[in-house]
């Protein structure tokens, strides 16, 4: 989510209507969390479970009618980060050695683990991005409160969402200020300045945090975040939740049969 802040609106598709978007936000969060946990906790190499989950995720993406191109673009960006971490799993020991060069070797186990983990990551990113693209952030935060997340935690998330763009702007302004005074002179100097900019940004963040807190206090904040009314569950919410649970159980159950 944070990767995309400042680039464009997060919830590009939240104004459209679809079956998915008629659900209460907390139902959507529950479904997504259930699915992500089920996908992530499935042991490596259980391809049949993932076939079941892939069908589920594909259905969800189709039902939510997100703009596929945007969805794929975001996932491409995120996978770029994830894959650098995942690459390490390729060189695991165990199984038959397929290829080796010096101490590096690719084994069947390594390939299996990499394939499993990549598929897990891809599926999880697909549903998480669908959730973020179809639900405005304030609704998500509300839903978290409805799901009994500690209000203070949600308040921290809310102000993070609000201030990250302010900080991005501030960093941009500092960068421009440096560039306008001919920063590009030499690389070593440039690195020093970037270091200083990051330091200045930290201090500014601290100062701003202090001022924001003062402004909150001056409007009667006592440390407890006030709650608004909760959105209600409807029949379709329950139906979708039951279906998700069934799908999760089916995916896990395939190997028990």
């Amino acid at each position, binding site marked *: 989510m944070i990767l995309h802040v400042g680039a464009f609106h997060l919830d590009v598709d939240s104004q459209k209507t679809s079956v998915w978007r008629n659900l209460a936000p907390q139902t959507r969060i529950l479904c997504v969390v259930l699915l992500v946990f089920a996908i992530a906790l499935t042991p490596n190499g259980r391809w049949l479970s993932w076939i079941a989950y892939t069908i589920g995720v594909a259905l969800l993406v189709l039902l939510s009618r997100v703009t596929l191109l945007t969805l794929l673009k975001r996932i491409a960006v995120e996978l770029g980060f994830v894959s650098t971490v995942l690459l390490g799993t390729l060189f695991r020991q165990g199984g038959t050695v397929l290829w080796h060069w010096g101490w590096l070797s690719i084994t069947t186990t390594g390939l299996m683990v990499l394939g499993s983990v990549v598929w897990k990551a891809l599926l999880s990113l697909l549903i998480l991005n669908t959730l973020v693209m179809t639900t405005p952030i304030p609704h998500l935060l509300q839903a978290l409160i409805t799901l009994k997340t500690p209000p203070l935690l949600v308040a921290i998330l809310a102000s993070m969402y609000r*201030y990250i763009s302010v900080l991005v702007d501030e960093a941009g302004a500092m960068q421009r200020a440096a560039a306008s005074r001919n920063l590009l002179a030499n690389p070593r100097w440039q690195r020093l300045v970037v270091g200083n900019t990051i330091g200045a940004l930290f201090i500014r963040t601290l100062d701003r945090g202090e001022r924001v807190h003062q402004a909150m206090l*001056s409007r*009667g904040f006592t440390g407890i975040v006030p709650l608004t009314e909760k959105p209600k569950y409807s029949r379709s919410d329950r139906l979708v939740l039951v279906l998700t649970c069934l799908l999760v159980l089916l995916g896990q159950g395939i190997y028990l049969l």
Partner: protein
Amino acid sequence: MHHNPIFIHQLHHTYADGTQALRSIHLSVPAGERVALVGANGSGKSTLLLHLNGILLPQQGEVVVAEWSVSPNTLKQVRDFVGLVFQNPDDQIFMPTVWEDVTFGPMNQGLRGEALHYRAQRAMAAVSLDPKLYATRNAQNLSGGEKKRVAIAGVLAMQPQVLALDEPTAQLDPRCRRQLIHLLQNLPLTQVIATHDLDLALELCSRTVVLNRGEIVYDGATEGVMGNPAFLETHALESPLSYSRPYCQIEHAPVRSLISL
């Protein structure tokens, strides 16, 4: 309305780094008065405003707001009584949407449901923001003037009896500044306005308090000080533009050709 909402006696404040921000401040503001608090940068204006709302507690001396002496036990009453509008609206508007931010204060007062809705709508109407258009708007996508108005609405929604504003016209374009002046003129509240904008002080406030290095050096009629450029200069201020212009009518301006265009 309380007859003398603000009374400050012998107030001192020293920051942790040793800077003496306020020195024996004595100030009393009767109900309904608009007071301009002017002074150079670092003269203690903001520090004084933070005391009115109990963000800073008196180290020495006393701040009395309505019948409450500002202390940790009276903070809730004090903060409901005095609304503080910060200089940078980005510091103040911290909720994701405008509606959530405007309702933040009244919700802290315990308002819910219909009453909360009414309060927030009245406050937004007071600063001419249409709730239908602005309620769901994202706070970060507003213009500077809009942000300022949202910040003021968030404070007005708490229905304070005293409004303390820190540099209200900083970062505003001339039209937004004009709208803000009209807004403040029509608010029937006691107002304390910290500002560098002496034209604004002249237009809005009958009384001016001049601060220099944490001390009050003038407290009296606004006209009394604005017409005294030598005094203003010793305290690092300048006469308002409306005083320093050598002509009164636009036809008397030195460059005629520009006007005839």
